[in-house]
């Protein structure tokens, strides 16, 4: 929180892709040794993905906690079937870990239980008024919607309710949309009900480009992400000025530990964020973007560091 103990924390968002069990467990084993303070765990995109079941996620959560991490259980963004609500209820009633709501169904279940919760990217908080209402129901942390600008964030921060933390998506492919249709299954001419778990073949989604070869999106089952990686590392000074509490890094199969290490080094003041951001960007397959932060189209590249 703002004040003398103000210290930016690093969070790792939930894995948005479908990775096999071994790959997931190995990934978190490595992550537990990094400098992230908070780890979000759970399936948020598609309930058909079952590398880990709810009990497996809870076991993993215990292990991450034992490794000294704050653990938050993330929940689904698009819930349609009763079976999905059943899993959601089980997570909301877990009794041990804070839950991140990505749908109003989760907000309802968590507020009924009177436990504090986190508002994830799936919840539309566009103003201090909405944030205050949800804080009254138990929200203790909110994620700024990725399409909002630093100006809007500043306006919300100025009137932020007491004891509510602000988290910003600072690194990763932006979650842009959810659909009833599975675009990965569609690519393979398969019906969603018989998708043959093709997402397993695309550990970082399926790249979509324009007919001119311009990288545009990544198809991740029913989720659509940006092809470009949002990188706000160069804005670290401003994020601090705005009293953001938590920076979220979204996992990729490769290089996530490096990204965490770079952010941690920048937070520690050991290296220059602008230079480090440029280095990270140089290694990105489809380049970086930071337009939303500047109130521009999200895919734009504005910062000096991103050239």
């Amino acid at each position, binding site marked *: 929180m703002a004040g003398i103990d103000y210290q930016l924390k690093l969070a790792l968002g939930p894995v948005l892709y479908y990775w096999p069990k071994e790959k997931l467990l190995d990934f978190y084993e490595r992550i537990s040794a990094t400098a992230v303070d908070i780890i979000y765990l759970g399936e948020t995109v598609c309930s058909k993905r079952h590398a880990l079941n709810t009990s497996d996620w809870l076991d993993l959560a215990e292990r991450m906690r034992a490794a000294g991490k704050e653990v938050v259980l993330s929940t689904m963004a698009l819930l349609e079937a009763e079976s999905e609500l059943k899993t959601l209820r089980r997570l909301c009633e877990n009794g041990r870990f804070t839950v991140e709501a990505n749908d*109003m*169904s*989760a907000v309802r279940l968590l507020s009924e239980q009177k436990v504090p919760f986190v508002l994830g990217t799936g919840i539309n908080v566009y*103003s201090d008024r909405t944030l205050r209402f949800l804080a009254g129901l138990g929200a203790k942390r909110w994620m700024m919607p990725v399409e909002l600008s630093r100006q809007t964030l500043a306006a919300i921060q100025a009137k932020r309710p007491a004891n509510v933390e602000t988290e910003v998506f600072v690194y990763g492919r932006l979650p*842009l949309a959810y659909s009833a249709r599975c675009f990965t299954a*569609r690519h393979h001419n398969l019906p969603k009900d018989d998708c043959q778990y093709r997402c397993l073949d695309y550990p970082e989604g399926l790249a979509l480009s*324009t007919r001119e070869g311009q990288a545009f999106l990544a198809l991740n089952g029913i989720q659509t992400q940006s092809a470009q990686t949002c990188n706000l590392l160069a804005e670290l000074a401003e994020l601090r000025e705005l009293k953001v509490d938590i920076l979220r890094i979204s996992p990729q199969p490769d290089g996530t530990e490096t990204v965490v290490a770079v952010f941690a080094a920048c937070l520690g003041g050991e290296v220059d964020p602008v230079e480090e951001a440029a280095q990270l960007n140089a290694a990105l397959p489809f380049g970086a973007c930071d337009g939303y932060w500047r109130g521009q189209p*999200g895919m734009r590249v504005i910062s000096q560091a991103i050239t």
Partner: protein
Amino acid sequence: MTASAVASASKRLELVCPAGNLPSLKTAVDHGADSVYIGFRDDTNARHFPGLNFDAKMAAQGIQYAHAKKRRVFVALNTFPQPTGWERWKRAVDQAAELGVDAIIAADISVLDYAQRTHPQLPLHLSVQGSATNYEAIRFYHDHFGIKRVVLPRVLSLPQVRHVLENSPVDLEVFGFGGLCIMVEGRCLLSSYVTGESPNMCGVCSPAKAVRWEETPRGLETRLGGLLIDRYAPGEPAGYPTLCKGRFEVADQTYYAIEEPTSLNTLELLPELQRMGIAAIKIEGRQRSPAYVTQVTKVWRAAIDASHRNPVAYTPQPDWLRELGKVSEGQQTTLGAYHRIWQ
């Protein structure tokens, strides 16, 4: 049970039609809309297009016209205000209440909260932009804001709609016809990613000002925010570059990777929607012309009446489908998510 017994057992579906201006509102009322939904002339609604929508005077005339014929008018205030814009949304809610509209269709929590506290007598509907795809989410809005109805996103199959209905504390309105959003409404940022403006923030998707049409040696190209959305061979009918309906490349294949340019048409599902107990059918298209509103309202009025009279014998008439086909995007229609196979 006889057909007439079925008909009398179920309530007639309410037909909710779009109006982007006064002539559209009047023609909707004249051709059988039970309710008409409109928006004000700013970014407080999700069809914030130049030259479209109602100022207070026009809205008053429209409401008077509809009420004189015992029809209802709803006002969509279904975008998400940011702190600097709040006064505009507040004014819009107050104005809707003063005009005596029959309901506000809203999505944002701050708007719903203000409307309920300030104008408790004004019925609230949860907009499709509110993204309520399950009954627990609907209960949230019912518990806190006393919503009377929810408009379902166009992502649920028929069995899923039925399950929501069986557990919902409020009436359901579903989309029957018009432009098809393939993404969960209220949670799609594709438009702002490319153009800086999204339905949530600005009330627009793929805004016209970001569109470019260019004749090139390779064919007619349509661009949005500079991004190539589609390219058409000579003689191929070109469509508006809504960004999820373009042809893109994925793993060396060029195709409609997200969705074909089609319209939703659920005419054949009417008896089932009616039997299920759906309260209202919504027609998309406030941005469309009065001619569109006339045509679509006429057909849907006839269809709903026919289905109500005799759901068992009901079958969509060829001339209805022909008329709707003429005004459909890409001249094609689909059952969308209602038909599970489509997903």
